[in-house]
């Protein structure tokens, strides 16, 4: 075994306490300065491997087999105190959600210095000086005083970088990055990605980079391991896995990304009678406006996409339309009739005609109800049908979204993420609406599953002629599904028109920036973008 092997997982096996196998005989080797990308859909065991490389398993799970060797020391045979000494010091972890990982009551500096001081790596003064150096490397604003702030006083991208500083504070040999850029906006993602890469290169740290996004891993990893259902599917050099995947599963993953890079526009609807018209709408929370001067119209059978980064007001737009956020001024018309600003004043039939599909299918379905109740309720509520007719309709709706009829007695907990989202769609369809507002319906789903959901939405539009207001930050999805698109920035629509026009020159500068920020699967892409930026 070569000396520069810093992390070696041998025949790793992780199971739940009930005996389900989460990670099955996976071997991982990591040399000094090398970055290995772990790729797979949710449930593939990526995060479990990341945690297991620190000899840690989540509550309810156990590491049941294999060896975890860091710098020649086997961690599973060590005592809890010895393992504790390794964590943070030799191997560090960057979590997906920095916001949930910082203690809101402590300053960033206290939290960044905690590990080196308690591990006795360096005294506090030295740790602070080192932290400032890390802040500077990570291009955080005012590195000398940045550490005096509390987590809520900095932006999401800055917090994620502060977390990288925290992980690097003990100069670890290995760093585990668990989807560190997934929660960030595309434009922020590039910056963080570039900085993380530079940081790892500068300090010669080895990295385990966990993500579901092939394009992201292409920018940073030397080697890629593809996982599925806890098993290793394929491992190889990054370029080779991305360009010539050997296994069918890896090929499917890569092709899904490739396909979404095409601009494949569905047929635009011939009927241009607008189902929803929004005229000069302003709205906000308290005194703070979040959407300003919105004008748009959606035709029957059309998919109208609203894109923008978080905080751009796109979800607030949806809330204005459904009446959860009463508008201040302007008018929202459904089929020519003005809708009351607030939800309780709207008659039942108006409510029926605008339905919503939420972002997180996990919390959009009541876990204590069966699918028969969840989907059947709108049928009974709006159409007052007899019990047998409702049952019949629930089965029809399940079939419409591609779920077997015997699912009626299941509860949401017994479904996968993609199945739950189909149930949400079925629930919306149960009301026989004219317009469905889809608020990021695919962003919580794995790419292959999201693909299925998009296809179902497309098919249902063809069959039923329903219009979609499709809110997303994912430009790839927009290009493929939307007839027309509006780009939002700081509560205003800055560009609006047929999707093909929005995504072809001349661009609005912000649209161009958004488009340029979407990672591509080319391993040279990040360098290219950074180069173009410096030239500008």
């Amino acid at each position: 075994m070569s000396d520069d092997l810093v992390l070696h997982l041998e025949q790793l096996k992780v199971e739940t306490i009930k005996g389900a196998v989460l990670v099955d005989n996976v071997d991982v080797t990591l040399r000094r300065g090398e970055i290995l990308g772990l790729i797979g859909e949710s449930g593939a065991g990526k995060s479990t491997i990341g945690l297991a490389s620190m000899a840690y398993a989540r509550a309810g799970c156990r590491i049941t087999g294999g060896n975890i060797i860091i710098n020649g020391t086997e961690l599973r045979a060590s005592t809890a105190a010895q393992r504790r000494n390794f964590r943070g010091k030799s191997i560090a972890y960057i979590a997906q959600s920095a916001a949930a990982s910082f203690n809101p009551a402590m300053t960033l500096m206290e939290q960044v210095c905690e590990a080196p001081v308690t591990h006795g790596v360096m005294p506090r003064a030295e740790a602070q000086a080192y932290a400032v150096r890390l802040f500077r490397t990570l291009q955080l604003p005012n590195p000398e005083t940045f550490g005096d702030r509390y987590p809520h006083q900095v932006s999401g991208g800055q917090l994620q970088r502060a977390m990288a500083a925290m992980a690097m504070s003990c100069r670890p040999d290995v760093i585990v990055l668990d989807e560190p850029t997934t929660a960030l906006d595309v434009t922020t993602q590039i910056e963080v990605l570039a900085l993380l890469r530079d940081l790892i290169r500068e300090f010669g740290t080895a990295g385990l980079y966990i993500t579901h996004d092939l394009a992201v891993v292409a920018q940073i990893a030397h080697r890629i391991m593809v996982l599925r259902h806890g098993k290793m599917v394929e491992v190889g050099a990054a370029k080779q896995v991305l360009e010539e995947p050997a296994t069918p599963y890896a090929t499917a993953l890569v092709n899904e990304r490739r396909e979404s890079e095409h601009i494949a526009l569905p047929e635009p609807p011939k009927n241009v009678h607008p189902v929803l018209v929004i005229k000069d709408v302003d709205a906000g929370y308290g005194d703070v406006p979040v959407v300003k001067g919105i004008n748009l119209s959606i035709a029957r059978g059309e998919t109208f996409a609203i894109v923008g980064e978080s905080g751009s007001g796109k979800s607030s737009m949806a809330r204005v339309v459904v009446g959860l956020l009463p508008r201040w001024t302007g008018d929202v018309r459904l089929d020519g009739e003005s809708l009351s600003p607030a939800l309780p004043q709207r008659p039942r039939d108006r409510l029926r005609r605008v339905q919503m599909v939420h972002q997180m299918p996990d919390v959009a379905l009541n876990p204590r109800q069966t699918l028969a109740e969840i989907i059947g309720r709108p049928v009974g509520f709006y159409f007052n049908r007899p019990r047998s007719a409702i049952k019949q309709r629930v089965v029809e709706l399940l079939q419409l979204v591609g779920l077997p009829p015997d699912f009626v007695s299941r509860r949401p907990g017994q479904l996968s993420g993609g199945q739950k989202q189909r149930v949400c769609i079925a629930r919306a369809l149960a009301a026989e609406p004219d317009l469905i507002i889809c608020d990021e319906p695919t962003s919580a789903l794995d790419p292959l599953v999201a693909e299925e959901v998009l296809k179902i939405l497309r098919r249902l539009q063809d069959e039923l002629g329903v219009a979609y207001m499709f809110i997303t930050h994912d430009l790839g999805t927009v290009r493929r599904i939307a007839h027309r698109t509006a780009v939002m920035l700081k509560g205003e629509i800055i560009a609006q028109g047929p999707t093909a026009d929005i995504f072809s020159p001349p661009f609005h500068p912000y649209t161009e920036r958004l488009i340029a920020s979407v990672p591509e699967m080319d391993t040279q892409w990040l360098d290219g973008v950074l180069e173009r930026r410096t030239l500008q």
Partner: protein
Amino acid sequence: MTLFGHRPPLFAQIGLAIVVINLLVAIFGPWLAPYDQSQSVGDTWAPSSAHMLLGADQIGRDMLTRLIYGARMTIGIAAATTALSFLIGITLGFTAAVVGKWVDVALSRVVDIMLSIPQLIFALIILGVFGSSIPVLIITIAVLDSTRVFRLARALGMNLTVLEFVEAARLRGEGLWWVIRREILPNAAAPLISEFGLRFCFNFLFVAALSFLGIGVQPPYADWGGMVRDNAPAINFGLYAPLYPALAIAALTVGVNLVVDWLLSIDARPSGAQAEM
């Protein structure tokens, strides 16, 4: 033996045994008791004997009979009180959480005012004004206790009402009652059930305390708090009489708490394992 899909540990089994025995005694009391609860069958504080296992009380009634009828009365009132308290507290708490705005402010401030007055003093005033009868007793304690239930239900409701499935129901146009009953209540059931056990204990002790003070259950009905007070002078003569009802109160309190502790521990760690490998 498994309950709710879990095997109760030893202490929970002891607690369950105590609770089950007490409940059976409370339900089947009149058929189990050897005598009538107001029937005088021996001398004052007669020692235990073959026909009076625990001896007699201060006016010669059979202690065991009084304990059995006391279980019926004390547990019955505590259970009715807790049920009523939960009905009021959950309804108002969920309403405050779901409707929000001024409804929440108004209800919460009223509850704050009630909580700021010591419960026992409050109860003494009400029972003093309206006189102590069993319905007044139940309603008084229930209203006072519902303030605590309100607080819990409101907090649980607040966490649930922001979830998207509740939002989906409101978007559909569902009324308040449906949202509370079908969307929120089933998801708040687990913590509420454990809280029910705890509140039952407090109410049970509260009824006993009021009876001990003489404004709770009135003679000739037997109840444990009143029995402690009536037999208290016996302690001066080195007799056990007041200890039997006191022990019964202590045993049931401990028993219910053991069960609740276990229920809470299931609720708190569903996966049932510590994180370290």
